[in-house]
């Protein structure tokens, strides 16, 4: 009988655990993602406010008294897993406007956009951040965004504003490029290649890791860079280039994490390949995330002509939102200096606003490629499917 009681107690306990998944649990400061200012908030915060419902949440902090009718309303932003922002910066927005911000992270950038497209009859959020220029055309064609001529756009360079209808507004940009492992190249007596063509030479046989463009966004960006550089017509197109890369034993990894950490020799994972397709800010990130152990990056950027691709990330207000006015306020905030200056160290990309100050680690170690690939979003959307299947035919099969 004792055992029976023990079993029942345990079952009840487990059930209780299970139910705590159902009832909103007190959110410790850690998960206060939705509530920047709530780190010391009481426990009454609903953990899961519903996007489209009228917000049931009570602001857990003193609302700015001059805040207008928007005070206490919740704005939901859907974005990719790499999105980040400082607690203080989100708190500043809430203090300014009285609007609570909730963030739904929904996978990688492509997945997030797909989810937004498939749920357009009942949008999951008020705003979507993280559509990049490789997906811009698909996003615009799906017609899921509302146009917003933000006054803040005036300060953003025209070259970043790829959508003339202002349905998608540029927030940040970064460069996909090849990183090299300084120590390994030195000990092998190699000087970094100076052109994309060099990578097909014997001394670089079995030295480069790229990501599969059909499963990875830096992989796609690098493929687009080579398409832009070598072109689709002539004797030596991007296809011949990739045939040569394959013959030179390029290693294709399925995603950035595996490529960078397991295959690349310059990362903490200590792999076998000294060259990897990554980001121009990765060397700076290596210094920043070394906890002071490094004063110079262990890796360098291979800024060869045509070897870089600029990814621009956009924000848009989702059609069907009940909070268009609040969403506009947040878009303006994202383009303001407060938010823009926070971007580099949170997401390791460059702010779209040129006047936003950049941290020292960026000015020192993050180089900007001179001529990134020049494909328009329309060209990318039109070519994507065929390029990917041709690439797979050439490199994988």
């Amino acid at each position, binding site marked *: 009988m004792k055992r029976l009681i023990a079993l029942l107690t345990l079952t009840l306990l487990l059930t209780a655990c299970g139910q705590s998944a159902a009832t909103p649990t007190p959110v410790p400061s850690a998960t206060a993602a939705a509530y920047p200012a709530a780190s010391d908030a009481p426990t009454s915060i609903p953990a899961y406010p519903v996007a489209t419902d009228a917000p049931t949440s009570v602001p857990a902090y003193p609302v700015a008294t001059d805040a207008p009718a928007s005070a206490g309303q919740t704005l939901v932003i859907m974005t990719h897993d790499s999105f980040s922002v400082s607690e203080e910066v989100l708190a500043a927005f809430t203090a300014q406007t009285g609007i609570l911000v909730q963030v739904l992270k929904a996978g990688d950038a492509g997945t997030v956009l*797909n989810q937004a497209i498939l749920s357009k009859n009942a949008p999951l959020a008020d705003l979507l951040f993280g559509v990049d220029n490789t997906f811009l055309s698909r996003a615009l064609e799906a017609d899921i965004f509302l146009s917003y001529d933000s006054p803040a756009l005036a300060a953003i360079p025209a070259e970043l504003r790829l959508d003339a209808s202002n349905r998608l507004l540029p927030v940040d940009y970064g460069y996909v490029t090849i990183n090299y492992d300084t120590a390994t190249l030195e000990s092998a007596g190699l000087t970094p290649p100076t052109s994309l063509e060099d990578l097909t030479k014997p001394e670089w046989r079995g030295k480069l890791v790229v990501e599969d463009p059909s499963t990875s966004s830096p992989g796609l960006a690098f493929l687009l860079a080579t398409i832009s550089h070598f072109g689709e017509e002539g004797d030596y197109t991007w296809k011949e280039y990739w045939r040569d890369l394959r013959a030179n034993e390029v290693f294709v990894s399925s995603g950035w994490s595996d490529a960078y950490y397991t295959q690349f020799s310059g990362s903490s994972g200590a792999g076998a390949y000294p060259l990897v397709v990554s980001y121009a800010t990765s060397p700076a990130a290596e210094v920043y995330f070394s906890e002071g152990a490094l004063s110079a990056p262990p890796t360098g950027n291979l800024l060869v002509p045509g070897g870089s691709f600029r990814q621009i990330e956009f924000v848009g207000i989702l059609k069907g939102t009940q909070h268009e006015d609040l969403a506009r306020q947040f878009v303006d905030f994202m383009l303001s200096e407060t938010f823009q200056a926070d971007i580099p160290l949170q997401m390791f990309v460059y702010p779209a606003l040129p006047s936003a100050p950049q941290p020292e680690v960026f000015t020192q170690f993050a180089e900007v490629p001179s001529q990134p690939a020049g494909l328009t979003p329309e060209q990318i959307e039109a070519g994507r499917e065929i390029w990917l299947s041709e690439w797979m035919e050439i490199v994988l099969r």
Partner: protein
Amino acid sequence: MKTLRLSVLASKPIRLLPGGLALAFLLVFFFYPLGAILGLSFAEGLAGFWAVLRDDYTWRVLGFSAAQAALSTLLTLLVGLPGAYVFARYHFPGREVLRAVAGVPFVMPTVVVAAALGALLGPRGLINLGLQALFDLPQPPLRIPNGLGLVLLAHTFYNYTVVLRMVGGFWANLDPRLEQAAALLGASRWRAIREVTLPLLAPAIGAAALLIFIFTFTSFGVVMILGGPRMATLEVVIYRQTAQLLRLDLAATLALLQAGCTLLLSLIYTRLAARSAIPLDRLPRTAVARRPQGVAQHLLVGANVLVILVLLATPLVALVVRSLLGPEGLSLGYYLALGENRSNSAFFVAPLTALSNSLRIASATAIIALLVGIPAAYLLGNAPCKQPRSWCGAIFNLIDALFMLPLGTSAVTLGLGYLVALSTPQLAGLRSWPWLIPLAHSLVALPFVIRALLPTLRGLNPRLAEAAALLGASPWRTWLWIELPLIMPAIITGAVFAFTVSLGEFGASLLLVRPDAPTLPVMIFRLLGQPGAINYGQALAMSSILMLTTAVSFIALERIRPPGAEM
């Protein structure tokens, strides 16, 4: 004997109600979202459907998916069956811990396993560094290329525990006197195994093989990362078509093909399994297992312990060692860093929070899977059919196979199915329902619960329950005191797997849009998404925490005992 089966479950229609509810669960939470995404995918016609079926590439991928799954299953059985025997028949020190360790790989994200293999066998991994230091070599001597070999190895690494628990759990209660009787009658040891033990074990071995086959048939991360992009299963192609191209019609066709194969295979299995069950008296494990005696038995136990240590434990240990190696040698730096919000991010998640998110979802999953799986298993195990070969038997075989389907259905497709099904204004509110993730996980967990239970249920000797009824016990009392203790080991096996499936699953939690309540695997992925020593170190530290949590949970789950049971 056929007509007087389990007392509580005499075939009155009312007894079928719990099983009917289980079936309704499957309809609502699996078939409805699946139907929604299929409907949307083919809304513009079947051109894509036919194009996929006419493409040679589809059939090559299908062939590869099936071939590598068959090889993986065979290899896992070969390595796992001796282990199952040893764990069922012998007591030896460290047995419980080893069994828990064997289950840890099941929850590990593939990226982490790849990193673990790198930390162990990579050019600057522990083994190469050790060999280089030992023999003064300039170059790392060992290089393991990605490819089919690594895929098979990884599948064995992941699924060893399925054989150990599914077969071992069944074997542990099998009366060894049957084999001894055969030996007394002059059968050789091999003949006794072949003609007595194996036929009795067949349902459990078949169940394990089916689960492993389906699991590896739909393998995604292992094939993509360890096999390299040149290898593709249907699931990998589905992901490509969906994530990059949003070609839902092509993805849906491939998903249907994959599900169709799963269904076909499950049907074949259920037909065979329903006929091969033999009712038996089951002995408590204490009466079955003993200490190894003599050189041969010690060698056998030792060899299997070695397999677990070398195949399963060393990569995991390499990971833990790596997580403890900071820039200045041994330190807990990465573990401590997990608790600090260094960059002041609004999305910082303390490890304890991620841990409790994981445990909460996994516990909820285990409870749902048992609440649905036990009635479902009773429904299938006590089909009210007079003849197993009648239309009635065929229907129940089909229902059995349908319950296996979630395991063989593309997670990408099903995730989008939930999204589409819940994207009508009426149902949109349900998208943030906290039970949604455990529900989605429990669909994948259900096949494990049902497969663990069915061989035991079908093998129950009905005379025990009849005797209790004759002695005046009520049906409920008979179930609680006679039947529950007998099926408890199988229930625990099912619960362990349900818990594990949820603990390691990140796909569904990524696909279903949720407010930020990340689990351990999700956090590991986020950490591995940024360059830098501290991110990598923290990801490995977080993985070590996940491993420890898993092992401890297994040991705790196994200590659950029903009333009066000696397992």
